[in-house]
């Protein structure tokens, strides 16, 4: 070609266009290649025309792609567009290209020819790799957002919900489709206009912020939440969005409150007998003489203090899972009778005892079983009118011993029932007028379960309550003698529970 001739005809365009043009036969062997392609690859036209095929110039992954996809598609549809290949140049360097190909019949011979255009795609490939990585990263993050128990919400700068994860759906009971476009503040009803202005102001200054407020579930139930807000900025530093992560802290708030109440209650409970001990001791000193009744009060108060401390210690060892039972063959009827006799003496109340004539033995720790029955009986006495009767009934039901304690007292509301066995929980209706730190039922329930048994409660407000302890019977159906098998099983049960 004449070097001095201006670029003007189609041949120039073919040879020097900023893309590679090649013509190959159906089997991939080269017929022609333009100058740009030869410059890119570093091969001479002679070299390519000496039997080289297009697929021979490809790296191995591209060769596989050529065989599996490019060739079948080109053969079947007669063309193929935008296929990514890596060519290996004469120096064996990668040359990323995008290829468009079309099949034509050679007008002279009728043979199939393939006309291909190759575009350099080095930058594009790099961006695409970035895109793939970004997509993978987005998928990973999206999994986290989907799995999170926290509500993760994205809002517009004016606080309208744009995205709403499954955590938010569970927390607020509202589907994403319904939440989208709503004001986020609709779900955080305690945030005032001033609060919101303060939040947006902080976010605009580039800072994020977290505060504790209330969330509202679709059922109108309020929950304690911690809400974190973070800003998103667009070009020119404008606030383009707000991310909110809202965590339900109702439970930890409730535990906090319980612990606070427990401390207050415990201090009060410890102080009452202490005051009594100190008062009577001072009185003794002032009188300068020994009075039997005063010493008895001091001893009673010390016992009360002792029981309280024992309960606290037991509760903490139950909580830590460190406590042992010393099981033996126990006659339930005898233990119940002893507890009844003790409490009758202390309270002066009537406790009606109904016992099955059958033998009722269990494999358990005699002292702990006594504690279970005493706790239930004293609760029944404490929460019922002195004029009413408390009934304890011992029976056998299938393979279980049942001890039911029945009172005609104030009863327990459904709300309180669900949390009755929680540590430090005291039924709301009775918390103010009865003593105790809320450990009794918690301990009782734990002890029953440690014996492989269960504790059921049925109650109706103002009608009374029935607490039923069910424990696995020990020994044969008709006698109190233990079979070795039963003994082993009962021991297993106990050790598993511990």
């Amino acid at each position, binding site marked *: 070609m004449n070097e001095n001739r201006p670029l003007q005809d189609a041949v120039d365009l073919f040879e020097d266009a900023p893309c590679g043009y090649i013509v190959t036969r*159906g*089997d991939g062997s080269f017929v022609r290649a333009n100058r740009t392609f030869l410059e890119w690859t570093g091969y001479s036209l002679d070299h390519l025309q000496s039997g080289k095929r297009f*697929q021979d110039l490809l*790296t*191995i*992954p*591209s*060769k*596989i*792609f050529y*065989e*599996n*996809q490019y*060739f*079948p*598609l080109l*053969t*079947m*549809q007669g063309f*193929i*567009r*935008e*296929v*990514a290949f*890596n060519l290996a140049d004469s120096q064996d360097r990668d040359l*990323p290209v*995008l290829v468009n190909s079309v099949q034509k019949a050679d007008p002279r011979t009728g043979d199939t020819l393939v006309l291909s255009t190759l575009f350099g795609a080095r930058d594009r*490939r790099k961006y*695409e*790799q970035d*895109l*793939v990585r970004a997509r993978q990263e987005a998928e990973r993050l999206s999994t986290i957002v989907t799995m999170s128990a926290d509500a993760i919400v994205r809002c517009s700068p004016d606080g309208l919900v744009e995205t709403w994860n499954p955590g938010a759906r569970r927390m607020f009971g509202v589907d994403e489709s319904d939440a989208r476009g709503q004001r986020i503040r609709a779900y955080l009803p305690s945030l005032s206009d001033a609060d919101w202005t303060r939040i947006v102001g902080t976010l605009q200054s580039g800072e994020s912020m977290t505060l504790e407020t209330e969330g509202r579930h679709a059922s109108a139930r309020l929950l304690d939440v911690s809400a974190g807000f973070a800003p998103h900025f667009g070009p020119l530093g404008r606030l383009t969005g707000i991310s909110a992560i809202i965590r339900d802290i109702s439970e930890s708030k409730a535990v906090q409150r319980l612990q606070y109440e427990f401390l207050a209650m415990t201090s009060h409970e410890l102080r009452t007998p202490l005051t009594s001990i100190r008062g009577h001791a001072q009185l003794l000193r002032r009188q300068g003489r020994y009075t039997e009744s005063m010493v008895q009060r001091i001893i009673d108060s010390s016992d009360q203090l002792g029981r309280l401390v024992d309960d606290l210690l037991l509760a903490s060892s139950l909580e830590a899972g460190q406590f042992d039972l010393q099981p033996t063959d126990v006659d339930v009827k005898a233990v119940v009778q002893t507890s009844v006799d003790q409490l009758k003496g202390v309270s002066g109340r009537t406790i009606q005892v109904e016992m099955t004539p059958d033998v009722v033995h269990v494999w358990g720790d005699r002292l702990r079983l006594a504690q279970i029955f005493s706790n239930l009986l004293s609760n029944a006495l404490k929460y019922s009118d002195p004029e009413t009767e408390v009934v304890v009934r011992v029976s056998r039901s299938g393979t279980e011993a049942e001890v039911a304690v029945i009172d005609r007292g104030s009863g327990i509301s459904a709300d309180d029932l669900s949390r009755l066995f929680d540590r430090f929980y005291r039924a709301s209706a009775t918390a103010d007028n009865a003593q105790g730190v809320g450990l009794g039922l918690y301990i009782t329930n734990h002890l029953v379960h440690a014996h492989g048994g269960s504790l059921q409660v049925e109650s109706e407000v103002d009608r009374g309550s029935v607490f039923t302890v069910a424990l696995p019977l020990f020994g044969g159906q008709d006698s109190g003698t233990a079979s070795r098998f039963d003994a082993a099983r009962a021991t297993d049960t106990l050790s598993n529970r511990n």
Partner: protein
Amino acid sequence: MSVLARNNVRVSGRGTTPLVFAHGYGCDQNMWRLVAPAFEDRYKIVLFDHVGSGQSDLSAYDPSKYSSLQGYADDILEICEELDLHHGIFVGHSVSAMIGVLAAIKEPDRFDRLILVGPSARYINDGDYVGGFSEEEIQELLAFQDANYLGWSRNMAPAIMGNPDRPELGAELTNSFCRTDPDVARQFAAVTFLSDNRDDLPRVEARTLVLQSREDVIAPLPVGDYVQRHLPDSRMVILDAAGHCPHLSAPEQTIAAMEAFLRE
């Protein structure tokens, strides 16, 4: 979703002996368009798309089921069950050769003969075994897939897949055949190129033909040779064709070799 719809099963032909064609990785049943019609007179032709390919039901794609070739083999057996096929002929290309091997081992009654086009029992070299590729090259291939998926996910989005009633739409698509969901293709490639079926070969009872291209970069001659030697009742025909798809590049030869084998 019926099995037949799930795998886009197409049955044709005037014969009774079943001839089941299974396409390889990267394509769909269209691959058999130059070969299958030659058998219409004498056989019952069964064509299908693997789940995730062609016009199969994408919603049936279960990543755990299809994490091994056995999942695909089970699909073929389900198709056989549905169509009540027995003593048929299985024709499998590339990875579907081994899928057919697995199906034939599990239910030997389904296929009396196998025709394996460009089979490989393992693509990766392993000690004395020549598979054609190093482990690194296969890893590179799997990474390279993404370079094309970006284009493919745009051009071959499932949303515009499968409109047989509207051919004009097909003409607008960049690549209208062999549509494969990008995520499925990525996993299918890994399952295909990382599988090792060498121990399965001796367990095949069916009479088998290995159809080998003279030159095939994906399944070179030693690979086809290995497959043939380890199949108890088999023979190999080397086609004077280049490339991994002789049924597209040399359909007449492929048909002739198949017919000769079926006449035996």
